[in-house]
């Protein structure tokens, strides 16, 4: 059996469209220092750093972690840079978990980030590569047909996406780090916002944000010595599948289903609907909430939308989803997966502030990326397994 591993510190920046007040190193230090403070540790206590972000073109730099190394206290230490498309924030943390569970290191700083204001994500996502068709539509243009297919298959009410967006935008009001703060947001305002990529409306979409999220991961005997409660890693999984393949179901991808199954097996979860208290998952466009509920087994196929309509996924519902306001409220792309993990971690630590789910014991963090083909997930527990 591998070493047990726990998250003992979490730090996030304030997410915003443009963080004019900090450089890239300043942004990352803000998150990293908060994580160290949360764990009451210093840079010297860290053995290695695992850093992740989405494409380097989002900042116009080539492997920026080499430039960021001393800002992260990495001098003389191992530094790994993970990049698995949108799921990277989750994968980066998973690699950090491996560095602990393998017994190689005792304490690892893991951090994921994006400073989208340094470059232009829309430009970076719409380049015309040789020998390929340029989509020139950004991520929404790619995902809109998947949402339309989900609507057709499930027969979900047309306003499911509006309800998800309304819930997440209201949850964000309780999260001081969230980028979008819309105190007066209404159902009508979301419904009447313009159609960006039919059927995805403007207010059903995520923003472009600057931000970073950091976590300190430690082995079992060090996790017991922290000032605040650790979150135990009950399991972590990753799966990938090809983007262009006639057999794949991009709406309910096998990679996502297998990653969830693997995760539950690792953690000894027989019935995720009963045993998991809350979920923070990667929903960049609102319709992905019901889609991922089905992929991860929280609803039967075609019925994920019911959890939104009956209030199960609301903050005060039976199984809340995206308590932090989710990707719809803050989307520093490379960081977004780790933000999901960080929220799941803080829920079982009882450190989630105004968006705390009472008595959360087991939580799930989820990220996906590419053409709905990369999945990273982890389960966190309040109690040592």
């Amino acid at each position, binding site marked *: 059996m591998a070493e047990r591993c726990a998250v003992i510190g979490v730090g996030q920046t304030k997410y915003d469209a443009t963080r004019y007040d900090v450089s890239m190193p300043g942004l990352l230090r803000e998150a990293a220092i908060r994580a160290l403070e949360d764990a009451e540790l210093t840079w010297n206590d860290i053995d290695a750093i695992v850093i992740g972000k989405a494409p380097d073109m989002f900042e116009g730099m080539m492997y920026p972690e080499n430039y960021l190394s001393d800002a992260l206290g990495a001098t003389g230490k191992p530094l*790994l840079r993970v990049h698995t498309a949108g799921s990277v924030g989750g994968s980066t943390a998973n690699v950090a978990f491996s560095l602990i569970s393998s017994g190689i290191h005792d304490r690892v700083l893991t951090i994921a980030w994006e400073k989208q204001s340094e470059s232009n994500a829309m430009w970076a996502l719409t380049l015309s590569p040789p020998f390929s068709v340029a989509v020139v539509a950004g991520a929404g243009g790619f995902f809109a047909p998947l949402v339309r297919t989900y609507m057709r298959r499930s027969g979900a009410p047309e306003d499911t996406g509006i309800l998800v967006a309304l819930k997440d935008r209201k949850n964000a009001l309780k999260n001081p780090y969230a980028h979008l703060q819309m105190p007066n947001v209404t159902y009508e305002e979301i419904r009447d916002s313009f159609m960006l990529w039919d059927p995805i409306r403007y207010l059903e979409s995520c923003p472009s944000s600057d931000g970073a999220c950091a976590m300190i991961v430690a082995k079992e005997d060090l996790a017991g010595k922290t000032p605040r409660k650790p979150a135990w890693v009950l399991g972590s999984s990753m799966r990938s599948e090809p983007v262009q393949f006639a057999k794949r179901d991009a709406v309910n991808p096998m990679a996502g289903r297998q990653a969830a199954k693997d995760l539950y097996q690792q953690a000894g979860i027989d019935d995720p609907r009963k045993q998991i208290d809350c979920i923070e998952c990667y929903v960049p466009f609102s319709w992905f909430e019901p889609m991922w509920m089905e992929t991860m087994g929280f609803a039967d196929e075609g019925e994920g939308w019911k959890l939104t309509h009956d209030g199960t996924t609301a903050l005060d519902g039976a199984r809340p989803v995206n308590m932090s306001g989710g990707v719809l409220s803050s989307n520093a792309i490379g960081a977004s997966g780790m933000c999901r993990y960080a929220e799941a971690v803080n829920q079982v630590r009882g450190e989630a502030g105004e968006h705390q789910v009472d008595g959360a014991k087991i939580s799930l963090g989820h990220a996906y990326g590419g053409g709905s083909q990369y999945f990273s997930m982890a389960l966190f527990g309040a109690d040592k397994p």
Partner: protein
Amino acid sequence: MRDVAIVSFAQSNAASEVRSEVEILQPVAAEAVKNSGLARTEIDFTCSGSSDWLQGQPFAFVMALDAVGSWPPIKESHVEQDGAWALYEAWVKIQTGEVESALVYSFGKTSPGDIAQVQALQLDPYCVTPLWPDLDSLSAIQARACLEVGVVTERAMAEVVSRSLRDARDNPHAVRKGDHSVDDLLERPFQVSPLRELDCPANSDGATAMVIVAGDRAKQLCDRPVWIRGFDHRIDPPALGTRDLTRIPSAKLAAEKAGAHRDKLDFAEVTAPYSHQELLLRREMGLADDLSVNPSGGSLATHTLMSCGLNRIGDAAMRIAAGKGDRALAHAGQGPCLQQNLAVVLEGE
């Protein structure tokens, strides 16, 4: 630590490829899998290293999934680093006990652009990149500093070039090779003083793939498994004005932590894209003057960015597997003036 062995390795390198990265990679990955003796679906984990900037598009590694086989879905990860770091991540994954084997690959195609110029993008984006210092020039500054403190001489650099290109004649994957006398090399003009053309990397397009397997299974799969006995990587600070460019503390530390000198080394394969860097790495990693370094010809003979480090490790492993040595140090380096360094100690069964 679990015993992990390199059981197969394949590579493709060419001065300039007309094929896309996916087309270059596919046969290389297929060859590594075939030679491992495992079916693709028997390999538990997959990890790769590449850079979006070389392909000129975001998520450049995504299409590679089609080339290496990813259906049914695979446990997979990717580092935006040289493939040597992908090997490290795969080795760590095996150490957790969750998986028994891994396919590791990397690829790079730099011929469509000016790669020395492109690499200015890895510098301080606010103060240095806007000046567009190309990597050849930065490496020349390092070489000059080394000359001035006497770590290297121009003649010693020319000897590295002469020996590397002569050795490369036996390497079918080398894109630059030949018989050049030291005196002849010293007669040639500078490209960026004090570097001459042949002191600079032989940039190439290519891919590498490797299969690693844990424990007894590795022994069943090949006659002479090459065991990973030590593995470490470290980084130095980024600001070129902060670093003493005549020292590479992270290379020294990585070699020590990997246990390079716990026993006698038969040879070393190091990533030294510029000739003076081999001499610098020899000193920093404590390699004896008479130790055979880069019998493959090294980066002066073939240098596929993002893949060259894994290439050096693979070359060393195949040399041991062929019985031309029992214990070797393999090294990967990346970042301006070798800012980040990785060391792996390999031993034949």
